């Protein structure tokens, strides 16, 4: 179900602002939408549009060459705040497959991995350099297999991703399916032990 991530090539939009929370990425009022697809239109909605619906001309995703960026180079604590997974779905809907930042909101980061969006954590100085390069409109090449970001005219930047996450992204594995396929016995065995110690937790089969 998850779109595999192997390599992404394209422009990168710089958003060098700290604490861009999930409400900025996906404003709360759109949470009433129950679909996962088609949310790209709402990504950064209130940054991209004025109240009357007109585009905000100087917001990076409204400008060329970043309008169709596939990478976002963000500030620290990107995706903090609410747990809404819509924040990742709307980025995906806009074609953004990779976010590079000095740090991420924890739940957002895990939501990224589960949806085929690669969150890359790098030291602030490296992110700043990449952000400048993004601002110059250079082309980014993110290679998950090799764990490198290569930008035209710059030395490749190495990053690391937990091995498990990497494998899942490369193969497009769905976490639920993986657990059902590999852990069913372990789960059943645990449930037996757990029921013996804390039977009162099993309100469904007393």
């Amino acid at each position, binding site marked *: 179900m998850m779109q595999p991530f192997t390599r992404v090539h394209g422009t990168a939009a710089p958003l060098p602002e700290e604490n861009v929370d999930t409400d900025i990425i996906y404003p709360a009022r759109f949470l*009433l939408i129950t679909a996962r697809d088609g949310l790209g239109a709402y990504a950064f909605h209130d940054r991209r549009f004025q109240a009357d619906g007109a585009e905000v001309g100087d917001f990076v995703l409204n400008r060329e060459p970043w309008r169709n960026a596939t990478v976002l180079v963000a500030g620290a604590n990107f995706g903090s705040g609410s747990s809404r997974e819509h924040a990742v779905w709307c980025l995906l809907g806009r074609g953004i497959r990779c976010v590079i930042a000095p740090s991420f909101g924890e739940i957002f980061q895990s*939501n990224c991995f589960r949806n085929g969006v690669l969150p890359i954590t790098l030291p602030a100085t490296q992110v700043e350099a990449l952000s400048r390069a993004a601002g110059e409109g250079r082309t980014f090449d993110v290679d998950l297999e090799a764990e490198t970001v290569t930008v035209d005219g710059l030395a490749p930047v190495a990053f690391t991703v*937990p091995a*498990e996450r990497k494998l899942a992204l490369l193969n497009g594995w769905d976490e639920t399916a993986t657990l059902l396929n590999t852990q069913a016995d372990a789960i059943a065995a645990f449930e037996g032990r757990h029921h013996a110690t804390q039977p009162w937790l099993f309100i469904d089969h007393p």
Partner: protein
Amino acid sequence: MREPQTLYDKLWNSHVVAELPGGDVLLYIDRHLVHEVSSPQAFAALREGGRAMRRPRAHLAVADHAVPTGTRGGVIADPLARAQVAELEQNVADFGVPYLALDGEDQGIVHVVGPEQGYTLPASTLVCGDSHTSTHGAFGALAFGIGSGESGTVMATQCLKQRRSKTLRVELVGLPGPHVSAKDIALAFIHQVGALGARGYAVEYTGPAVEAMSMAGRLTLCNMTIEAGGRVGLVAPDDVTFAYLQGRRLAPKGEDWDRAVAYWRTLRSDPGAAYDRVVTLDVAALSPHVSWGTSPDEAAPVTGHVPDPAPYRGKRPASCRKGFAYMACVPACPSPKSPSNACSSGPAPTAVSRICARRRLSPRAGGGPRACAPSWSQDRPRPRSRRKPKGWTLSSWPPASNGAMPAVPCVWR
């Protein structure tokens, strides 16, 4: 001899199903609170994958995010909200998940109904698609917010892949003076460590002030933990916890109750247990706190000053100014000397003095308005007969004469 363990260690260790390659573990999840905003996609994923729920009756669903706060039972005016609630009702019916009906007496905010129903229990793991799920740690439950995709995994497997957090003990020294509530302690803690200070940590609150605190206070402390960046807040269960839980609908009964309490008493952190970090906070010296900005660490004691944005704790002046503008606050404004003269002092009607005015009028509200938390203002012994608890008491505030203050909506977390 066994190493001394923290409360978090005990909760974690007792739920490990398997160690996974790469350092993650598969953690068993006992409880899952389901609400209308974060669950539709999880149910959709079950359908798409042709999957059943592993233990449908172990979950508890309630509509609380997209519903009107006033009336119940009629038609929801907003068509999207109406459709979202209808979708939840269809999903719980299709999958057999227990549901607290919108027009029923037990409906309420997800983090309030868990405790009220006795669904939130010590020694359990509890998740919900809402970052304020840390709230339930007040009962000594390992509780944290998750995304919708993770909700789908819990529904299908009753498990989640997780990585162990570091542990942070917040040692509250002394007892709070009059007018200092749990919310003030939370704001002071966040102010001390910063809005990201507890990131990566499971936070355990300890000390005589916590022991003396009602469940309402403990819920407030744990609720606000996420505002310090921590996904998990914890208080060791004790007699206060047990007294709150006994007799609740889903709490253990009879012999089970006695066994449960005996087990719950073993959860307390062992003497000498090691934490990755310890923060102490002298609550005896605390004054009531008020917020002057838009980030939870932007708070000050009423005896202090609203800062000058330029040198404020390394934050960008622009971000502080944004907060000032939003709160109609004056930089470097001295806040009132004490809550009692709040209204009459200060060079301008700053947000701080207005907040203080509210506190004086309604001291039970227990905190500034920016930190959005349900008002567990008092422990109500048996809340069953009341309507939905109101998460918000700002309807008559700010005073109508003041046009400068924008309305502060409850931000979905």
